């Protein structure tokens, strides 16, 4: 009994999540079938939240760290799971106000399935498991993107997402198989060892590029970003929240893991006068493209959601700079940046969602005068926008600062400073469009007939909490940094 | 008594009085009285100074000296000698006189009187300061109230007059400021005494060239000349000396009566004072080198202004040109005194005579010119705005006292023996004839022309048939007589006993002569 079911014990959080998801589905189809949409949302949503909370509780209390061939339970992965579950929880709470569909049981079930996929994604050191988890994350997301059946953009977005995602997945699979052929193993650590000892052939680089392409897709890094604006705009807003925050965090984590643990010997160099092939120059190219495409496209947007989408692409670019840091600073800076970014963008999309529910359209001009219609909400949006712009004392500033410092210090003689200069310049431009949003909110003229509206407490509380977190982590980032350093350094497997 | 900072207190009285007047400006009568009281207090202070002044000693008296911004060579340094005392006394006398003349000013009297008091503070400060920093502050303090006085209470063409006055004087001041900045950069000093010591044997030229020369100036003479011109310009505009005089006729003519009295009585003396106190000690060499052109300018000033006065039809403009003419005599005396001569008591006596004459003339002219403007103001008042030469006639019959006193003033201005103007002019000519004979000779032309137009005034205004419209011409009221009494008395007193003034001015003249 013990040995045959022992494999289930480390996976209890995932199991809890899946169980609750299925429960939510069942209850919704059976008992709550005839109830009204808000009630169904409440019931299913509560189940989902309970599941998340239970899983988080279990993770927080379970300190038995193990590592097997397929799965790794280390302080780092557990911490990441906590963060991802927290993000999912907020999305679930935000979905309480969902009115875009009647099939809420399916909605929450799929959400939790995707969350399970997230958690699996960050737990594994095995490429195949990673791929499976990736699919487990993506497929529910494709469906969820299409959930708003009354909206044509939603369907279009889902289709694009699906097509792009499939191609990316195929590319990743191809790369993985190449790697297997080259090294004979699917485990990241062993791959690195093999690559270090073998002579490097062109096929290695091919495998590198193909594998990374898939993950670049996941984090919406240019040139694999084309799905992002449409999906962020078309998908139901809570799902956009989820994709922008949790999916991104997991994506970066896995990317970091693969590069650091798997492709370490192939790093190459992107230094100013010493270009050598490897993942460094590749990531440098991705970063520059993302920053430029993201920022310039965002300058001309009229829709808040698309603006946030392009800003997400740009921020992905900034985050990629962390990979150029030295071994001590790369991971803390990357994770700090991505986590605080996820909190911020989650808050921003949450505000968008609330505003949408009040009947305001998504055009920038329709946001005019929001500051007077919903002061607290606007204040939170103020915090989120400025954090995205990188204004101190908010977390976005420190995240960027740490990443830039890490990148500069990563190579001797300031060899990577050129990339940091590009990033800082791009960041400066970005203030323009964030200020455009804030300008509409605070300096815009109220249109005739616009009335104040009061967002529900269920929506307002998480948003306010996120805003406080953003401010708090900006003023006292040491807390999160300390935690990250601790969990990274106490990893029992090489990462 | 002598331990009190008398000079500072003296300057503070009109300053604080002006502030008090401003604060009371919503009640015109009160503010007038406060202002007048302040001016009388200042007069009492000046009289106290006179009483305490020691005519025997040659150096600075009532000296106050405190370190101020030591790192920049700025000290709070006050002191007066005979020249300063005369100027302070003159200012203290003219201000109450001017206030009484403007007693019934129509618009915002509070502000008007306050500005006059600030002007007086500026005058006192200028005449007592011995360090460029606060000397310049007071110099400017004299300028700004005058501008407002002309601009806001003047005649029909006051805007242009005020603007011209302001810009010219300020431009001159800025030139002076830049020159002194150069001097400071060269010597690190702002103190007039110390600078005079440095300049005694050409030291200033050397210092200027050492620090500032080289790249831009080929010879130290040219550099020193440029700096000299800067300072010269400031005073030449103020005095005025031709050709920097163009602001004067309009300003004096358009200003309200009281302001004109102040302008001619006290402010014009600031320019001459500057020549004596600053330009002469600091730049003896340059003045000597440029003596001939300077004398020419002085002569031209004298003759031209007299001729211009003769050609005028407006009484006030005549008075303005006449004022310029008398300042010309002062400058003649100064420029003559810089003549390079062999050392010897005889020459020193001549030079001292010239300088004494200048100081006496400054004092006397202050009194007579302001009285003249007062009379013109009275004429204007009684005639409802007319002041043309040809508008009147036979007033002697209607207002004998008026004409009598006006006649005395005119003769005092002309320089009739027995009245105050004589001794000053006599001494100037006595001194400058041997020193700069040709200039003095040509200048007597000025005397002649002056005599002509003054007699013309007497004839046209006082004699002849009375015009019908002036038959109701009122003679001087009691108030006006009381106003004029002190001034007229002084004109007689100083004419009969000039020793009163000479005892004070002579030591000062000798001290100035020691500089070169």
């Amino acid at each position, binding site marked *: 009994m013990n040995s045959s079911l022992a494999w289930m014990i480390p996976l209890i959080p995932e199991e809890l999540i899946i169980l609750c998801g299925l429960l939510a589905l069942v209850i919704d189809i059976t008992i709550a079938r005839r109830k009204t949409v808000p009630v169904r949302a409440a019931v299913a949503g509560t189940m989902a939240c309970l599941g998340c909370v239970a899983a988080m509780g279990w993770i927080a209390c379970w300190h038995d760290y193990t590592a097997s061939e397929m799965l790794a339970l280390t302080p780092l992965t557990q911490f990441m799971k906590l963060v991802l579950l927290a993000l999912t929880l907020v999305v679930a709470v935000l979905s309480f106000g969902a009115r875009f569909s009647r099939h809420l049981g399916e909605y929450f079930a799929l959400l939790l399935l995707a969350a399970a996929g997230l958690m699996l994604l960050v737990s594994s050191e095995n490429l195949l498991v990673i791929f499976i988890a990736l699919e487990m994350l993506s497929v529910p997301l494709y469906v969820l993107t299409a959930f708003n059946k009354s909206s044509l953009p939603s369907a279009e977005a889902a289709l694009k997402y699906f097509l792009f995602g499939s191609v990316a997945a195929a590319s990743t699979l191809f790369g993985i198989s190449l790697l297997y052929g080259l090294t004979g193993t699917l485990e990241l650590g062993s791959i690195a060892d093999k690559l270090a000892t073998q002579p490097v052939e062109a096929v290695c680089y091919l495998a590198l590029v193909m594998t990374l392409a898939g993950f670049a897709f996941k984090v919406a890094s240019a040139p694999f970003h084309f799905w992002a604006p449409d999906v962020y705009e078309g998908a139901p807003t809570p799902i956009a929240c989820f994709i922008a925050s949790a999916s991104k965090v997991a994506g970066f984590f896995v990317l970091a893991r693969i590069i650091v643990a798997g492709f370490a010997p192939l790093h190459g160099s992107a230094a100013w006068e010493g270009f050598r092939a490897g993942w460094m120059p590749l990531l440098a190219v991705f970063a520059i493209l993302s920053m430029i495409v993201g920022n310039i496209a965002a300058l001309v947007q009229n829709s808040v959601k698309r603006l946030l989408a392009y800003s997400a692409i740009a921020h992905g670019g900034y985050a990629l700079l962390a990979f150029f840091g030295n071994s001590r600073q790369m991971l803390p800076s990357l994770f700090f940046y991505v986590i605080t970014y996820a909190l911020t963008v989650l808050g921003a999309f949450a505000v968008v969602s609330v505003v949408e529910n009040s009947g305001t359209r998504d055009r920038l001009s329709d946001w005019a005068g929001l500051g007077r219609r919903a002061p607290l909400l606007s204040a939170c949006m103020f915090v989120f926008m400025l954090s995205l712009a990188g204004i101190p004392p908010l977390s976005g500033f420190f995240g960027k600062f740490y990443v830039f410092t890490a990148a500069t210090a990563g190579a001797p003689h300031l060899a990577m400073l050129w990339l940091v200069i590009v990033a800082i310049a791009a960041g400066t431009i970005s203030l323009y469009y964030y200020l455009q949003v804030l300008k509409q909110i605070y300096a815009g003229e109220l249109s005739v007939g616009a009335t104040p509206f009061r967002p529900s407490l269920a929506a307002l509380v998480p948003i306010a909490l996120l805003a406080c977190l953003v401010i708090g982590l900006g003023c006292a980032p040491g807390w999160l940094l300390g935690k990250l350093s601790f969990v990274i350094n106490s990893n029992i497997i090489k990462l | 008594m002598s331990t009190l900072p008398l000079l500072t207190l003296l300057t503070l009285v009109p300053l604080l009085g002006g502030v008090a007047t401003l604060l009371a400006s919503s009640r015109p009568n009160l503010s007038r009285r406060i202002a007048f009281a302040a001016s009388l207090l200042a007069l009492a202070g000046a009289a106290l100074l006179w009483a305490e002044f020691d005519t025997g000693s040659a150096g600075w008296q009532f000296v106050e000296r405190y370190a101020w911004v030591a*790192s920049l060579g700025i000290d709070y340094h006050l002191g007066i000698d005979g020249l300063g005392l005369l100027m302070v006394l003159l200012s203290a006398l003219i201000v109450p006189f001017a206030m009484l003349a403007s007693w019934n000013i129509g618009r915002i009297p509070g502000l008007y009187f306050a500005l006059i008091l600030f002007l007086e503070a500026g005058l006192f400060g200028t005449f007592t300061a011995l360090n460029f920093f606060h000397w*310049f502050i007071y110099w400017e*303090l004299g300028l700004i109230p005058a501008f407002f006085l002309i601009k806001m209470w003047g005649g029909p063409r006051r805007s242009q007059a005020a*603007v011209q006055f302001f810009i010219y004087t300020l431009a001159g*001041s800025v030139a002076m400021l830049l020159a002194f*900045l150069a001097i400071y950069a060269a010597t690190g000093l702002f103190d007039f005494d110390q600078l005079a010591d440095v300049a005694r044997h050409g030291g200033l030229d050397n210092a200027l060239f050492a620090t500032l020369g080289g790249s831009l100036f080929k010879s130290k003479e040219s550099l020193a000349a440029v700096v000299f011109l800067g300072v010269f310009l400031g005073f030449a505009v103020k005095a005025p000396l031709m050709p920097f005089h163009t602001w004067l006729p309009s300003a004096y003519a358009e200003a309200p009566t009281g302001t004109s009295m102040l302008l001619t009585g006290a402010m014009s003396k600031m320019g001459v004072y500057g020549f004596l106190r600053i330009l002469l000690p600091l730049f003896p060499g340059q003045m000597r080198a440029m003596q001939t052109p300077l004398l020419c300018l002085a002569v031209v000033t004298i003759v031209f202004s007299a001729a211009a006065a003769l050609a005028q039809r407006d009484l006030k403009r005549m008075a303005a040109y006449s004022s310029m003419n008398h300042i010309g005599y002062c400058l003649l005396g100064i420029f003559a005194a810089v003549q390079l001569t062999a050392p010897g008591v005889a020459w020193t006596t001549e030079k001292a005579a010239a300088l004494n004459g200048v100081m006496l003339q400054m004092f006397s002219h202050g009194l007579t010119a302001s009285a003249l403007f007062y009379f013109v103001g009275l004429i204007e008042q009684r005639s409802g705005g007319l002041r043309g030469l040809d508008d009147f006639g036979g007033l002697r019959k209607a207002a004998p006292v008026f004409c009598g006193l006006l006649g005395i003033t005119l003769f005092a201005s002309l320089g009739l023996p027995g009245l105050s103007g004589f001794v000053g002019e006599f001494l100037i000519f006595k001194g400058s004839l041997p020193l700069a004979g040709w200039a003095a000779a040509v200048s007597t032309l000025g005397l002649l022309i002056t005599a002509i137009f003054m007699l013309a005034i007497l004839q046209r205004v006082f004699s002849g048939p009375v015009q019908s419209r002036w038959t109701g011409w009122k003679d001087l009221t009691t108030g006006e007589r009381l106003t004029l009494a002190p001034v007229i008395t002084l004109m007689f007193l100083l004419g009969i006993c000039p020793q009163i003034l000479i005892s004070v001015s002579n030591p000062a003249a000798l001290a100035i002569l020691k500089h070169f």
Partner: protein
Amino acid sequence: MLAWTIYISFLGAAAQVLLPAESRRAARFMALFTALAGLVAALVGAAQYERLAPSGAVADLVNISWIADLGIRFHLAADGVSVTLVLLTGIAAVSGVLFSWNIERRAREFFALYLALIGGVYGVFLSFDLFLLFVFYEIAIIPKYFLIAVWGSTRREYAAMKLALYSLAGSAMVLIGLIAAYVVSGSRTFELLELAKYPFPPAFQIWAFLLVFVGFAVLAGLWPFHTWAPTGHVAAPTAASMLLAGVVMKLGAYGALRVAMTLFPYGLRFWQNEIALLAVIGIVYGASVALVQRDLKFVIGYSSVSHMGFVLLGLMTLTQIGLSGAVLQMFSHGIVAGLLFAVVGRMIYDRTHTRQLSELQPMNLSVLAPFVSVVFVLAGVASIGLPGFSGFVAELQVLVGSWSVFPRLTIFAGIGILLGFAYMVRVWMKALFAENEPKSASINKLEPVSIPERAGAFLLLGTAILIGLWPNILLTLIDPALHSPQFQPLWKGGLP
């Protein structure tokens, strides 16, 4: 005590938001109270500083570890230069509130943003950790944007965005320089005094100095990066332009002095002549352009560029007297520019609703508004730099210092003073005095000068005259500070 200026301002800003929305009176008085409390804290702190550290040393106020992983500390300290500028900020803050007494629309948000800006400015002047300094420097950008975008006038949104982007671009340059310096020095600490001791390689210093100096100097109005200033000043509401010209531009100059010049002395010597040239171009250009403007506020805006040129010239002289003059000019111009903008914005524009000289002239303001005219004339005289006002001693020191190093440039700077006289007289003539007397007395009477305006005018004029007559009050703070060890490398030329 000095650190309390920061806390008080931010607390005041937060308190503003909690006030009821409709109560303008509460907002104003709360803001005035906060600003006054800040000024009192500044004065008390200054007195304490003089007692504790009379020789110009740096006095620590707060020094706690903040982000240990990067060696960042929350380090507030002060030396004479900081104290001088903190005093300036205090005075400017109070007078700004007084001149904004008549804000009607969304008063509490206005004052909240205003106080947040003030808090950020105090923070910059008191920070001795580079990261902290940078944080405060950037905090100041956003309130500026909103103050102009919401409450401004001519082309406010464009001006606000231009200002924000220029400021951010400048600080981006500074950020690059700071990160580079941090990394090159071994990444142990962001402490200003520690990093200043580190011998950066000359080749590095050459470009790092230029980057950081220009980054800061953009905000100081260094020509040709000054173009945000005239537009920004004109569009901003009165209090904001008072702060912009009075205090915010000094942030840039201060940053240039405190950070760029002490960290990279070799780079400083390398670029000294070029920057001095740019400074003098700014002096002459600003004054010349001011001479031909038709909008009164533009005249004052360009005159600010011209005066800041003196500050930058003084900094580049690398003489004790030149730098002393530069810091004193920072103080003096802060007061005088604030006063000029107050007169033009609050006293004139709010009453006449026009800033065009051609429209103002017939109004004959010298008669309609005598108090305003007198204040304007006195402010203008102070701006020209006549003795008796604070600008004289400052410009004197800058010119004397600059003559010993750049004689030819100093002549042009002197021309700048003459031009200053010219444009000021022109503006007086055109704005205050009508050509001809108005035909009838039916010109609208202007609303009388309110008590807050008088108080503000007296405060600013009084300070200008006080420092003009007793510059020692500030020179005893500034001169010893410039002698202290952290400025030694400037005199020596800092070859590592």
